[in-house]
């Protein structure tokens, strides 16, 4: 799989998990395995993970990004206020991704994406996203962040 992390120097830490009362673990697990293979340090919280646990784990591990999975449709309820929780915990600009079958029913992706970006996620990924796309996005975002690191 392509899209290895940009700087071998510094190892990025990612928190993954399936939010809320959602049992769909398969995709999240395959994704986590791929992230590890790609060289990331991955903290796997698994299925049925309350929003708070993501933040807690991110703080404890000084994570660079949180990757939230939501497949079962109730992510629209579970993810509300997720960014605020991060800010409260001092993770003001931690990278936030969300992906899966984020809402109930087959809705136009543009609408869904907007809803989740408005919630404060940096990126949202549509149903059936492949791991390579996730890896590519992470590589790109970390690259630009490292580049702008020095700036005020």
């Amino acid at each position, binding site marked *: 799989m392509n899209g290895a992390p940009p700087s071998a120097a510094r190892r990025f830490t990612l928190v993954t998990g*399936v939010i*809320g*009362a*959602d*049992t769909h*673990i*398969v995709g999240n*697990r*395959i994704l986590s395995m791929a992230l590890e293979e790609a060289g990331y340090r991955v903290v796997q919280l*698994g*299925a*049925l993970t309350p929003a708070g646990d993501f933040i807690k784990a991110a703080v404890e591990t000084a994570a660079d990004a949180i990757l939230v999975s939501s497949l*079962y*449709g*109730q992510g*629209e*309820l579970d993810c509300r206020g997720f960014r605020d929780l991060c800010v409260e915990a001092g993770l003001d600009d931690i990278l936030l991704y969300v992906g899966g*079958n984020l*809402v*109930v*029913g*087959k*809705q136009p992706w543009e609408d869904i994406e907007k809803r989740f970006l408005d919630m404060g996620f940096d990126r949202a990924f549509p*149903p*059936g996203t492949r791991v390579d796309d996730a890896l590519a996005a992470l590589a790109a975002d970390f690259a630009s962040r490292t580049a702008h690191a020095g700036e005020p």
Partner: protein
Amino acid sequence: MNDIVSSKTLAAALSEAAICAEDFARMRDANLARWPTGAAIDFDEAVAHHKALPQKKQLAEAMRRAHAERRCLTQPRGGFATLAMQKELMQALDRDGLADIVPTTTDSYTRNEQFAAAQKGVDESERLGRSLLNGFPVVNYGLAACRELIASIDKPAILLTGTSMPKLTAEIGFAAGYTGYLGSGIAYTTSYIKELSIADGIRNYQYLDRLAALYAEHGVELHRRQPGFLTGTNIPPCIAIAIAVLDCLLAAAQGVRHYGLELAQTLHLVQDAAAIAACESLAQEYLAKKGYHDVFTPITSLHWMGAWPRDDAQSATLVSYGGTLAAIGGATSVTTKTTHEAYGIPTPQANAEGLRITRMAIYLARGIRLAGLPEYETEKALIGREVRAILDKVLEMGDGDVAVGSVRAFEAGVLDVPWSPNRHVKSRVMPARDARGYLRIFDPGNLPLPRDVMEVHAEGLRERAANEGIAFDRELAIRSVYELSEPLSKLLPD
């Protein structure tokens, strides 16, 4: 609220033995007291309500008739957040979909007994005019609302409540006139929850099965059903059947005499037909071993439970072929999906369309059976050997007690389920699809499968690895997770 505690305190040592009347009465009172709507439940009134139901709304009866006439009934899944949405859905499935069995799927908060969260979901859905829940919150709405739903259709209604904590939902559902209930202690605990132990999952369903048996004692036969799909992700027949038989023996011990068994389709015509036939005969074989000779065990075949393609055309084929597989396999009912599967919960229209596509396929396959086909007979025998190897070991580990044996077997990995979210399940077993399309086991973990049987599995898998020029490793299993969701240009390039 926490069900784990309550069940722990109520049931001391785990055993397959039937819950005694006194304990059960106490357990029911405690259970019904957990949420306001529990108060409305009056068992005698509920029994009377069932006896007043027209025959066409009694699922147990419908399944027995279909089994006798070798018909295959159709049933979708379906649940929305509000009563109005749910009623519209169930009527569409009944009328536009010609569903033989009409479902009410509960939402995932209800499944985890987060009734307050479910209420928020209802309110938000009312406010936005669209469902934000993936099912109908049966407990929040309670008895009267459920009866209103059942009154609005002309078919039997079944509760689909993927959960290992079914006790309150079941009390309300049965009392409301649902004549079918899908769920079991082992299966759902391996696939729907992370922390709950297999033992507690079994306890929760011993309650449910005891309740169903109580209705039977009062002259009301209900259709109990085991959810054979487990994690829905490439479950080989032997694992699904072994667990289905164990859940069945546990239910029989509580007094249940009508217990349907589900099997998710592998999408291989021969393997699915063999699995359906093997499942029913193996269930009867082990029921007899335990001294039960009067348990009715019809088989329900499930449309592909793994990842779906995002092309409506490819999905339509999975739906149609799903009807073909169920009918030719001789299943008594089939649970249908739709062309929306890869995206989201289907609209009532898409759901009804999935039912009609399936129904037409059943019509076309009428009368066709594979008995006598050499490949079919070989596969059936293979499945039989696999299942017996697992079950005999489990029973041995439990010194004859199915509940104890199951718990110990999971601890040892002698019972195992691929891709399980539950930390009490090893999930070391790795299935994959072989070169000829059979669902096989790449790594058995600690499953006690005979060496020569594993050789059969490995052969076809090695062939696939060779064909695709990839290593004979985990990659095979992961590819098999994605396979059916891939575009045609990748599956069958021109």
